[in-house]
C-alpha cells in the first residue's frame, strides 16, 4: 500500500464537475507532479489533500489513515503557495517557527529548528528580516522552510515558481528537488509548466478536464504518451496520418494518426530510419547548439531539431530536402 493514497476522488462545484475518478498512490519520499492546463483540476486535487476543499466523494489516506474528515490544521501537511503567503507581521525566523510554536514546542527547540531550516534554504543570516525586505525567490524559500519546519508528513507545492522570473525559477526548482531528496519527504507539486514537471519529478500525473490522463515517469510521459492530449501537452509534436493502406512514406505502420517528436525526425537519410519523406524547408531557426527546421512534407508541417555542426551549414529556406525517421519512433495516438 502506498504512503499517500487517493482513491476514486471526485469533486463538483454545483453542477460543475472539476475532478472525476482520480486515483493515485504516492510512495514515501516520492516527488509527484500534477501537470495540466489551467482549469484541469490539479489545484483542486491538491487543495483536497490539504483539506481546504471537501471531496464530493472518495478517500484520501496518509499512512493508512483516512484524512477526509480532518480539518486542514489536523492533517500535518506542509504547503507552499504561489503567492508566498508569508505572515507580513512576523520576521523570517518567526515565520519559520510559526508551526512549531503552534504545536507548543519549547523556545530553544524552535530556535534550533529555525536555524537548521534557514541553513537548509541557504539564508542563514536573514532570520531578523521582514518578508517585504526579501526578493520573491527568497520569500518562496522562506515559505518552503516554514512548511518543512514542523516536519509534515506530506509537502504540497501549489505552483510555487510561477510568480518568479525565469532564472530564479530554474535554480529554485533544482534547490527544491535537492532539499526534497535530502529530507526524503513525500511531495506533490502542481504546475502547468511541462519543463518544470519533466525536470524534477519522479512521476508525473498529466491531468485534463478533471481526469488523470496518464501517470508515469517523465521518460514514459514524454516518449510514450498514451493519449492525444498528453502527447500534445507535453513537448512538441509532429502529426502524421497514415494513408488508406496504413502506410507512411511507403512503410506499413497501421491505421490511424501518429506523432513523432522533433528530435526523432532527421534531415537527410539517417542510418536507422526506414521512412523517407521529400519536404520543402519553410523556416530555419539557428539556436546555437541546436538548429530547428520547419518543413512541409505531404501537406503537413513538420518541425525537427538537428545539432549544429560547424562544417555543415543549415539548409536554405525554400530548398527541397529529404526527411527520415524510424517507424519505431512513431507514437500511435488514441
Amino acid at each position: 500500500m502506498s504512503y499517500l493514497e487517493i482513491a476514486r476522488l471526485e469533486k463538483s462545484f454545483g453542477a460543475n464537475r472539476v475532478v472525476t475518478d482520480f486515483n493515485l498512490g504516492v510512495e514515501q519520499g516520492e516527488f509527484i507532479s500534477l501537470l495540466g492546463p489551467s482549469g484541469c483540476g490539479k489545484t483542486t486535487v491538491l487543495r483536497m489533500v490539504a483539506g481546504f476543499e471537501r471531496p464530493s466523494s472518495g478517500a484520501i489516506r496518509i499512512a493508512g489513515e483516512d484524512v477526509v474528515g480532518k480539518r486542514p490544521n489536523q492533517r500535518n501537511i506542509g504547503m507552499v503557495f504561489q503567492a508566498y503567503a508569508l505572515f507580513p507581521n512576523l520576521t523570517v525566523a518567526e515565520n519559520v517557527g510559526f508551526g512549531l510554536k503552534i504545536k507548543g514546542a519549547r523556545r530553544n527547540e524552535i530556535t534550533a529548528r529555525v536555524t537548521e531550516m534557514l541553513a537548509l534554504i541557504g539564508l542563514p543570516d536573514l532570520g531578523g528580516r521582514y518578508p517585504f525586505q526579501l526578493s520573491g525567490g527568497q520569500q518562496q524559500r522562506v515559505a518552503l522552510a516554514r512548511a518543512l519546519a514542523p516536519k509534515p508528513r506530506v509537502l504540497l507545492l501549489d505552483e510555487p515558481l510561477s510568480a518568479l522570473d525565469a532564472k530564479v525559477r530554474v535554480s529554485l526548482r533544482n534547490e527544491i528537488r535537492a532539499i526534497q531528496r535530502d529530507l526524503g519527504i513525500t511531495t506533490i507539486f502542481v504546475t502547468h509548466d511541462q519543463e518544470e514537471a519533466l525536470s524534477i519529478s519522479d512521476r508525473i500525473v498529466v491531468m485534463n478536464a478533471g481526469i488523470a490522463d496518464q501517470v508515469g515517469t517523465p521518460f514514459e510521459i514524454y516518449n510514450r504518451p498514451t493519449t492525444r492530449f498528453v502527447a500534445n501537452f507535453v513537448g512538441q509534436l509532429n502529426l502524421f496520418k497514415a494513408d488508406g493502406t496504413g502506410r507512411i512514406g511507403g512503410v506499413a505502420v497501421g491505421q490511424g494518426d501518429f506523432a513523432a517528436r522533433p528530435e526523432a525526425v532527421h534531415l537527410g537519410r539517417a542510418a536507422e530510419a526506414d521512412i523517407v519523406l521529400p519536404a520543402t524547408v519553410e523556416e530555419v531557426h539557428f539556436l546555437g547548439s541546436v538548429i530547428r527546421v520547419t518543413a512541409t512534407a505531404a501537406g503537413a508541417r513538420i518541425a525537427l531539431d538537428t545539432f549544429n555542426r560547424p562544417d555543415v551549414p543549415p539548409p536554405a529556406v525554400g530548398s527541397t530536402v529529404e526527411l527520415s525517421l524510424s517507424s519505431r519512433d512513431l507514437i500511435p495516438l488514441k
Partner: protein
Amino acid sequence: MSLYARLTGWIVLLFGLGYFIVPLVGLTEFSLKARRGVYSFDAYAKIIGDPEFQATFSYSVVMALVTIAMGVLIVVPTAFWVRLKMPWARPYVEFLTLLPLVIPAIVIVFGYIRLYNTSSFLPLTGTATGTNLLLAFGYTVLALPYMYRAIDTGLRTIDVATLTEAAQSLGAGWTTILTRVILPNVLPAVLSGAFLTFAIVIGEFTLAALLDRPAFGPYLQRIGANKPYEPFALSVIAFAITWACMGLIQLVTRFSKHTKAQP
C-alpha cells in the same frame, strides 16, 4: 507652473488655513481670559480641578475602552468571515453597519428603553451595571460604521484567504488565526477604528443623557449652559484629545514597519 497658478495656490491654502485656524485662535484666546486683564490658565485649572470633570471624563474613557473592545470582538471576526467565506454577504453587512448613520441615536435609545425597561423580560435599566452595559452596546452600534469600514479596508490590504490557509496548514485553529495572523496585520486599521470610536464616545451626548449615565458629553453640555470661560477651555481640551487621537493614528501607521510594502 506659472506665477499666477502658484500665487492662486498659496492664496487658497492661506484662506483655507485661516478658515480653520482663526476661530480656534479666537476660542483659545477667549479661554485664556478668565482672569481680568491678563492671560491665564485659570479656566483650565478650574476644569481639571473639578471632581465632576475627573469623574465624567474617566467614566467616558472607561466606556470608550469597553466599546472599543466590544467593537473589535464583533467586527474583526465578522469582517474576516465575510471576506473569507461569504463574499456574497458583503453588501448586506455593509448596509447593516451603515444603519446607525441613518437611524438617529435618540431612536436607538428609546428602543432600548422600551425593550429593556424594568418591567421587560430583560430589565437592564434596573441596575447601574445593566444600564452601563446598555450604554456600551449603544456606543458599539454608533461606532459600527467607522469600525467596520476601517477594519474592512485593513483586510483588503492583506491576502486573507491565502494567509488563513497558510496558517491552517501549519496547524493553527480559528482563534490562533484571528489573534496571531489576522489581527496583527490589520492592527493599524483596528487602531484607527479604535481612535475614531474613542472620539465618538468621549463627545456622545444623547445616549448618555437619556440613559442618565454620568458621562462626559452631558457634563460638557451642563458646563456650556452655566459657565462663562470653562466651556471654551473644555472645547480646547476636547480638540486636543481628538488631535492626539489623529496623531496616534498617523504614528501607528508610520511605525508598523511590516506593512510598508506589500507583494
